[in-house]
């Protein structure tokens, strides 16, 4: 038969090409993806096009300038350029979020994967351990770990990773448990396929969907968590800029100079919202049945 490349024909594409095909049609999700990419590129490359001295140079003469041509986002109480601080802050907020989710995901896949694949006693022990971490609200657990380890950016990353991974472990385990008894896995076993091949070729590609979706949504939640810890004064230590820390520093002045609060807050809200759009879009794209 002759293959026709008609638009909308997804018959002969791979699984991920199909997911991408459906994702691309979702305007909101694409908007979110593009926005988050722009924000990431702008903030990660900020050191290339914004001089770092603008982040910390204090200039009392220029303090509390409203947004203008020279200082796009205005200046804060020390006359520091808010635009530079927000851009460098984004680098920390977004990359810290990514690092936390990456570590938590790695831990979650190992723990949840082991629990789901081996089952029995291993499963019971590992899941009980996860229950322990899940018993306390996430932010409170992170706070407790920070209090034991001491303050600092890396310690906050560790604390948030530890408090995030049990959720991932549960999802990975649930995903593996549903796949383990599927007929095609049994069929593969009957054909004498090795365990590692079943794990890497059959279980992982099919079980990855829900894990990726929850990781995207957790990224938004983690960025909110980092900002909250920064705001409470137990996250990134000032004067290092981070969106939550910037808000915390300007807290007393926001009532007189609203742009000091509005701008960093908008950056947090927009990035979290865009990540949620991407997460929802991915969920619909991965499992078209869930869309009503």
């Amino acid at each position, binding site marked *: 038969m002759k293959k026709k490349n008609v638009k909308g024909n997804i018959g002969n594409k791979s699984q991920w090409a199909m997911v991408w095909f459906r994702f691309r049609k979702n305007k909101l999700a694409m908007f979110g993806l593009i926005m988050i990419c722009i924000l990431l590129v702008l903030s990660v490359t900020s050191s290339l096009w914004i001089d770092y001295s603008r982040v910390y140079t204090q200039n009392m003469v220029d303090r509390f300038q409203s947004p203008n041509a020279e200082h796009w986002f205005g200046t804060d109480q020390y006359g520091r350029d808010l635009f530079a601080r927000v851009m460098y802050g984004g680098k920390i907020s977004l990359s810290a979020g990514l690092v936390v989710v990456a570590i938590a995901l790695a831990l979650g896949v190992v723990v949840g994967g082991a629990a789901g694949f081996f089952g029995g006693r291993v499963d019971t022990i590992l899941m009980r351990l996860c229950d322990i971490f899940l*018993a306390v609200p996430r932010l409170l657990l992170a706070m407790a770990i920070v209090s*034991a380890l001491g303050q600092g950016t890396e310690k906050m990353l560790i604390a948030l990773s530890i408090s995030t991974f049990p959720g991932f472990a549960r999802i990975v385990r649930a995903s593996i448990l549903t796949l383990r008894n599927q007929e095609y896995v049994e069929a593969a076993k009957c054909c004498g396929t090795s365990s590692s091949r079943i794990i890497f070729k059959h279980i992982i590609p099919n079980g990855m969907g829900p894990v990726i979706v929850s990781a995207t949504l957790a990224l938004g939640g983690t960025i909110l968590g980092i900002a909250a810890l920064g705001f409470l004064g137990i996250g990134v230590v000032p004067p290092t800029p981070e969106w939550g820390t910037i*808000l915390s520093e300007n807290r007393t002045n926001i009532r007189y100079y609203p742009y000091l609060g509005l701008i960093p807050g908008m950056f947090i809200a927009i990035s979290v919202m865009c990540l*949620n759009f991407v997460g929802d879009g991915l969920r619909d794209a991965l499992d078209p049945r869930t869309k009503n």
Partner: protein
Amino acid sequence: MAMGKYISKRILLLIPVIIGISLFIFFILSIAPGDPAALILGADATEADIQAKRVEMGLDKPILVQYINYMAGVLKGDFGKSWYNGYDVMEEFLNRLPNTLQLGLMAMAISAVVGIPLGVIAAVKQYGVFDYMTLVFAMIFSSIPTFWFGLMAQIYLCIKLGLLPATGGGSFIHLILPAITLSAAQLASQVRMTRTSMLEVMKQDYVRTARAKGCSERRIVVRHVLRNGLLPVVTSLGGSFATIIGGSTVTESVFAIPGTSNMLINAVKVRDIPVVMGVLIVIAAFVGVVNLLVDILYTVIDPRVKLGT
């Protein structure tokens, strides 16, 4: 009786969780750098002073002995004293608990009373203007940071317009804005959750049957869909309790409410470990009991659910 057995089993299961979480904090504390005794006494303290303080705090003993001593105290209701202010942890916690509980319950009430009807209407008028508007608002509210929402509301409603008191606790008026702030994110997920659950039920066969026999749309929604559609919503309310307790940390900080979360934040900043441990243990137990209550409530409203093993 099966129910009694189930409840006692669930309560027994809380014990390893509490032991685990306290052991975990004790463990990371033991590997963390810095001597708490030296930190409390400051730079001027002599070696002998520090040593005496260590003995006083029980830090000279091995970590496992410290832990067992601590847990023995906890069993008797003694959570130790603050390293910095010397107050009794349990007493201070109980003094502050009403503030946090009032705030949390009010926030939960707002998210249930506002969120559930909004979700139901959005589902009934699916793809209508109202549906899209609630979804857009839900999206916005779940993305903005709680503390930012609180800060902005405080500045515009309290300081600029003078409608409500900006900080402090104690009275109903004081709690309105903090409770709205705390419920905002929860409200958003409540709306989405209710909508999804209602839509799920509306696809069921018995709803089609009801329609086929000529039931009015109103009767279908009220009698057939609501009853089953709200079941998952009730469980999610229980889960939201933990989220609300977690979220109340920032809310209490923004509005300067003297609750348990503010106690925890201050303790975390100075590494006041007995306070952190005490608050965490009590909250873990509290959340566990609330989840148990929700599960029991679930069997009452839905007889199909069996509490098993």
